[in-house]
């Protein structure tokens, strides 16, 4: 009983901290409350995130602010077409004595307590790099200098812009499945936010802006513990389990639930996906969301709040509809939540 109470009080204390963390980021990134909330959820669920959006909507600023607010060591790398896995791991250069030297590269430079690894323009990197990243995300380890490096606290954030498709490499499904969320960053809808982003000089110098974010609110090692506490502390009832399975079923066989989308043949729309790993990620994210809302139980609203970001990229649809993917999958998910009866 005492232990439970302690866990409860620790969790609510951390909830305060998480909300503070959100506010810190919201101070420098305007009009992206939902994205910030999702990134907070991902941080406390210890999941990797892929950001996708237009150019110049503040993806990079958001991630830098996030990394700064989390604290711990932080590394970033830009994806380019000639980037090879070795460039991430090793840094080859000439020493002061004129002899060639091999030093740890960006990934290893901070040692094993690397907490945030930020991969910019991930789709410009080659598949070899993707596979290295796959291992880093799945196992949180890489091999270098004849040994394995482990990064127990690493969280990978990647971004890609969806405007350019030339000279890019599509991420393999396996790599995308490793991301907890794929978050769409859009322009801020709020007019006041748009106005200040354009005219307020505070937002013109990103480096100066980022110093406003309080550094290191969350300790990565504790974050790991608290994430475990959230997962065990937030309940999922039997009803919710039934509901989740019904959602899963509805995504895979929308026709059976009477879901129809204009101009789409529902029989051939969904080819597969919504993997068991995806569903477990969904519950993980939903638990964190319930905790952030101050609840100790997961309710259908939590699933609905995180479902598009966690599940949309795991649903494989017919290639015919691939070009209209965002709209169709978004509508499919919305319809599923409208149709599948809860509780």
């Amino acid at each position, binding site marked *: 009983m005492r232990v439970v109470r302690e866990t409860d009080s620790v969790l609510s204390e951390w909830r305060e901290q998480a909300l503070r963390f959100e506010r810190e980021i919201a101070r420098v990134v305007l009009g992206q409350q939902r994205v910030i909330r999702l990134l907070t959820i991902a941080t406390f669920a210890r999941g990797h995130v892929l950001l996708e959006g237009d150019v110049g909507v503040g993806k990079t600023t958001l991630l830098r602010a996030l990394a700064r607010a989390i604290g711990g060591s932080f590394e970033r790398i830009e994806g380019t077409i000639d980037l090879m896995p070795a460039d991430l791991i090793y840094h080859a250069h000439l020493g002061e004595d004129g002899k060639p030297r091999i030093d740890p590269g960006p990934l290893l430079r901070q040692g094993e307590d690397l907490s945030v690894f930020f991969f910019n323009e991930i789709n410009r990197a080659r598949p070899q790099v993707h596979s290295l990243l796959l291992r880093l995300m799945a196992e949180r380890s890489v091999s270098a200098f004849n040994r394995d490096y482990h990064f127990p606290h690493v969280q990978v954030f990647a971004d890609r812009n969806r405007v350019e498709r030339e000279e890019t490499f599509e991420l393999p499904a396996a790599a995308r499945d490793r991301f907890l969320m794929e978050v769409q960053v859009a322009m801020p809808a709020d007019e006041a936010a748009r106005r200040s982003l354009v005219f307020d000089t505070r937002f013109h110098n990103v480096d100066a802006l980022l110093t406003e974010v309080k550094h290191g609110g969350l300790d990565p090692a504790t974050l790991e513990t608290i994430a475990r506490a959230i997962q065990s502390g937030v309940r999922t009832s039997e009803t919710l389990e039934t509901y989740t399975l019904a959602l899963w079923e509805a995504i895979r066989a929308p026709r059976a639930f009477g879901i129809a989308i204009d101009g789409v043949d529902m029989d051939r729309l969904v080819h597969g996906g919504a993997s068991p790993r995806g569903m477990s990620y969904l519950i993980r994210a939903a638990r964190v969301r319930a905790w952030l809302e101050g609840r100790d139980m997961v309710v*259908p609203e939590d699933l609905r709040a995180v479902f598009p970001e966690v599940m949309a990229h795991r649903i494989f649809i017919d290639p015919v509809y691939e070009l209209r993917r965002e709209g169709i999958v978004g509508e499919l998910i919305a319809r599923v939540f409208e149709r599948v009866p809860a*509780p």
Partner: protein
Amino acid sequence: MARRLRLAFLALLAIAGATPAAAQVRAVDLYAPRAFGYVIGDALTLTADITLDAPFTLDPAALPTPRALNYWLDLREVRLDDHGVEGGQHRYTLGLTYQTFYAPLEPRRLDIPAIALSATDGARRVAVNVPGWSFLSSPLREVMTSTPGQAMTLRPDTAPRMIPTAGTRHALLASLVIALGALAVLAWQMGWWPFHRRRARPFAMAARAMAGALGSPSSESAYRGSLMALHRAFDTTAGHGLFAEDLPGFFAAHPAFRAVEGEVRRLFAVSRDVFFGGDAPGAQRALPPGELLALARRLRAVEREAS
């Protein structure tokens, strides 16, 4: 030279054709109505029976066309009946309807002119004469009135004949009935005015189901079932799955339910505890089955007022 030769040839042909002409035309008998007592505007029908020898046929091009023959006589109608060949003779009946517009001052004999037709067997051509006829036309009234005063009283005009409209009226009635029927079907389909109450009443159904289930003593599963029934009713009313977080939107879309807003929020909180918090006994204490049933009835009343 050549022209003169051709003329001579044509003259020869005419002689050759004319010689047997009498033999080709067997008879032309004219049948006429009475020959007197006609006044201005009267129509006369003459009938001529024409009998030709077999290969000869009457040339339809030679028939007169209905027209004004002179200033007082109109040919109104020409009808030729072909009775076919019988016993080597080709019989026709030619019907001619004339109308006279002659206004005589005293009885006067008028002449209908003869008509020249022609018959041909392909090579030869013979003339067929329908003889003329004469009749006596009389004035309508005396020239000078012997008694003073009004010479003639005009008779009133005949009433105009009604245009027959019964068929049109029946067709109009039938199409009106069909249109009204179609409108009624459409209104039923769309749930318009006379049928707007047809819409299912989800809360009424839920209340009915709950009244059965929540009778004494109520079990936990009955309580859960009742909550479910209410949730389904909310889903149906909202048109989609309704969660606790959607309640503000629901009240905005269905303002009638604002009257029970507090109770609905409590219901959703309790149902959360039951289904997701695993705290059914606490929930039953917070909202006892009796109150739940009362809430269902209030919702039913709100729904009835709103619809």
